[in-house]
């Protein structure tokens, strides 16, 4: 019998480097999350926050460093000393271990709310129709949309669409949930319902890596805050350390400029 290894990180990013052509986006990022950590990444646009999330979900290729998810190096393998991108089937299997929620919802427009949640359950998890529907119903109720199962995305408000997207990601039972500025595309009056939904997920004990501009929200839910600047992690600490009195000059400037 081995005890569950709580010391082992769930996500371990080591020296992550990413460039688009000659432009370096990530210049060596180290970040580690243990199970049930909620880490928020803040920083001005262009600092590499979203790219970092997309690398973890293998939506972007990266040129250096390793990402280790639950003990498995993802995205690449080393063959004869050379680093090669994995095959599509392997990438897809590894992507299914993380759930991603996008800024612009990205719901499948031809499927109902239930259909959106069911697609991955059916095609990736190979569940039967009834079982997949039961899970979709459970998760859509969980995000407060139990009465909207048959609605198409075009019939839902932005906040409702984003909650469907959250249900779609969580129904796959991912080890890690990635949230990419999930409230940035919402009208102000719809932001709160989505944030409340996310708080519920945090209370359930999910592991989250969040990119956000909602400073108050980040402070409230996060176990740790990471401040990124020009492709590097500039500062990292507890919400108190980052937002509290003793914060650094540059963090102070960023927080001031981000408050509208």
């Amino acid at each position, binding site marked *: 019998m081995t005890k569950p290894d709580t010391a082992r990180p769930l996500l371990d990013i080591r020296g992550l480097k990413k460039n688009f052509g000659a432009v370096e986006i990530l210049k060596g990022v180290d970040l580690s999350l243990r199970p049930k950590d909620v880490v928020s990444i803040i920083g001005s646009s262009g600092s590499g926050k979203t790219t970092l999330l997309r690398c973890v*979900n293998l*939506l972007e290729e990266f040129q250096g460093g390793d990402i280790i998810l639950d003990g498995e190096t993802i995205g690449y393998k080393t063959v004869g000393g050379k680093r090669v991108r994995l095959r*599509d*089937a392997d990438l*897809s*299997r590894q*992507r*299914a271990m*993380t*759930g*991603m929620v*996008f800024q*612009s*919802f*990205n*719901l*499948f*427009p*031809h499927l109902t709310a239930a259909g959106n949640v069911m*697609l*991955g359950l059916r*095609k*990736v998890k190979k569940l039967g129709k009834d079982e997949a529907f039961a899970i979709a119903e459970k998760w859509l109720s969980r995000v407060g949309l139990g009465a909207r199962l048959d609605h*198409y*995305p*075009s019939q839902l408000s932005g906040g409702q669409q984003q909650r469907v*997207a959250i249900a*779609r*990601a969580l129904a*796959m039972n991912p080890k890690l949930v990635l949230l990419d500025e999930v409230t940035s595309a919402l009208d102000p009056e719809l932001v709160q319902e989505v944030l409340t939904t996310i708080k519920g997920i945090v209370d359930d004990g999910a592991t989250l890596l969040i990119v956000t501009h909602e400073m108050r929200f980040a402070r409230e839910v996060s176990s740790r805050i990471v401040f990124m600047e020009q492709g590097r992690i500039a500062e990292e600490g507890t919400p108190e350390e980052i937002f509290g009195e003793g914060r650094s000059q540059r963090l102070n400037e960023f927080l001031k400029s981000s408050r509208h």
Partner: protein
Amino acid sequence: MNYTLHFGAVWASFDHLLSGLAIGLALAVAAVAVGTVIGLLSAFASVSRSRLLRGISGTYVLLIRNIPLLVLVLLVYFALPATGIRLDKYESFIGSLALYAGAYLTEVFRAGLLSVPKGIVEAGRAIGLTRMQTNISVVMPVMLRNSLPSLGNTFIGMFKDSSIAAAIAIPELTFEARKINVDTFRVVETWTVASGLYIAACFTIAALLRMLERRFPKF
């Protein structure tokens, strides 16, 4: 100039025109069915990451679209047997029209593919669908819906182009009308009735397609 219209001779052979119309529709349906498969494969090839596939698709469209359909039909019908491939005139024509439709549908589907938002493709990949699964379950349905209006135009065009089959003596509507002409010399009447039949058929196809568009609302 005095010309008295006498439709009697045309009505006497009306059943031939109707059977010609049915053959024309059958030819178009068969050709569009095969052409849709060709067009889908070719459209996916045209946006593929493989330069070879893009090249094959591009060359196909370039060649076929720059040959008049009549010439293509005659080429396939008369030149193919020389290479040892024997097709009857129906197979030969359906094949020609399918090749022709495929080239136009490549462009229709290609535009549809480019209209699919990148975000929903990424969302598909993010939940763990493979590239192929994403294409089948996410890209195709959205692309087909977005292509529906131009698809309708192509279908109607292919039906009208089935008249070219007269050139290789397939007894479709135009062929039958020409035969009635030769037999009765009622040129104006025959072509008027034939045109009326083409219009009625195209109008019906268009109405059916509009129904389909309403049945599947735009996203």
